[in-house]
């Protein structure tokens, strides 16, 4: 999965759980819970949806890597074993 593909996946899931949020305008290095007000249910929903679409099981131990948009994208790129730049 390329960074662009991963970014699209995460942005899509965030847009679904927080349709009122400006996903394109979030700081990629800011905490998602601050940027768009993700609570624990939203966070788990995003993780489950993205994990299923990426074909990855994302264990709770890895959750700290997912707290920012940029971190989430990097995790997916590394986890899917493809860091080609689109």
């Amino acid at each position, binding site marked *: 999965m390329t960074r662009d593909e991963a970014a699209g996946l995460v942005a899509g899931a965030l847009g679904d759980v927080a349709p009122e949020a400006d996903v394109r305008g979030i700081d990629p*290095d*800011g*905490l*998602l*819970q601050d940027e768009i007000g*993700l*609570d*624990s*249910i*939203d*966070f*788990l929903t995003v*993780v*489950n949806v993205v*994990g*299923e679409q990426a074909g990855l*099981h*994302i*264990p*709770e*131990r890895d*959750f*700290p890597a*997912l*707290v*920012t948009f940029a*971190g989430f994208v990097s995790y997916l790129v590394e986890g899917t074993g493809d860091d080609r730049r689109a």
Partner: protein
Amino acid sequence: MTAAREVGLPDGRTLVVRPAEAADADGVALLYAALSEDDLHLRFFSVYHPPRDFFARVVDAAAEGGCCLVAVVDDPVTRVVGEAEYFLLPNGNGELAVTVAPDWRGWLGPYLLDALVEAAAAHGVPNLEAEVLVENRRMLAVIRRRGYATVDGTDFSEVRLVIGTAGPTPTWPARRQRPRVLAETRGTWWSGERAAKAAGMAVMVCPGPHAGARCPAIEGEPCPLVTGADVVVCALPATGGDVRAAHASVHPGARVIVPGLALRSGEFPLASTSDDALIGLLRRVLASNPRPGG
């Protein structure tokens, strides 16, 4: 000894999850003091403001064979932003609770529970249980993401859930006191639970494969819930993997009741949804000889 976990935060600070110490009692008390009345209701089933002794006992859970972990961060002084604990139950499992500061909710609750599960496994505690109000959607979401089962869903205002510490599913209690019925059905509740328990049976309800949690049987591995059960009632739809087919190959000796009449070899048909029909069939199946491999 439970190892500490360190998490680098985007702002450069470090969050540490570690076993609680006696000196953390005040920090945990401050964590609870920041909870809303709704939060307290979800935690204690009433708007209960715990006394100082409560926090002293929580942080010293290890003295009673349990465990308490705290999540601390410099903010700018050291602050307890989360706490997870279990105390031992008579059946050998642990009774868990997780509390996270309102401004830290998101990833930290599931992460703390994961650390607690790891600590419990290291101490030989096979499962962690929780009594959860049905309106506590946060806690239900955190627990349901793991492989869980319902051990008591007969009260529609609260539910008792159990998660395993050493594998993808929980296990049955070590002591076998009653015939064991595993009900596999979507969601948390099984309509036959009350009747089966009234008939003297132990019941666990498994939701099967679901988001975030893996099903060992679907993946071709034995499931401890199935291998520990005397009879399985499988009412799962054939979506996301056919559990009935998985039982046939992975648990060939399991005695499986299925609704309807379309049966695989070795299955028992449940033709009616009435409690009487269910209990009658359960008793007949339990009285039958387990098939080889069961």
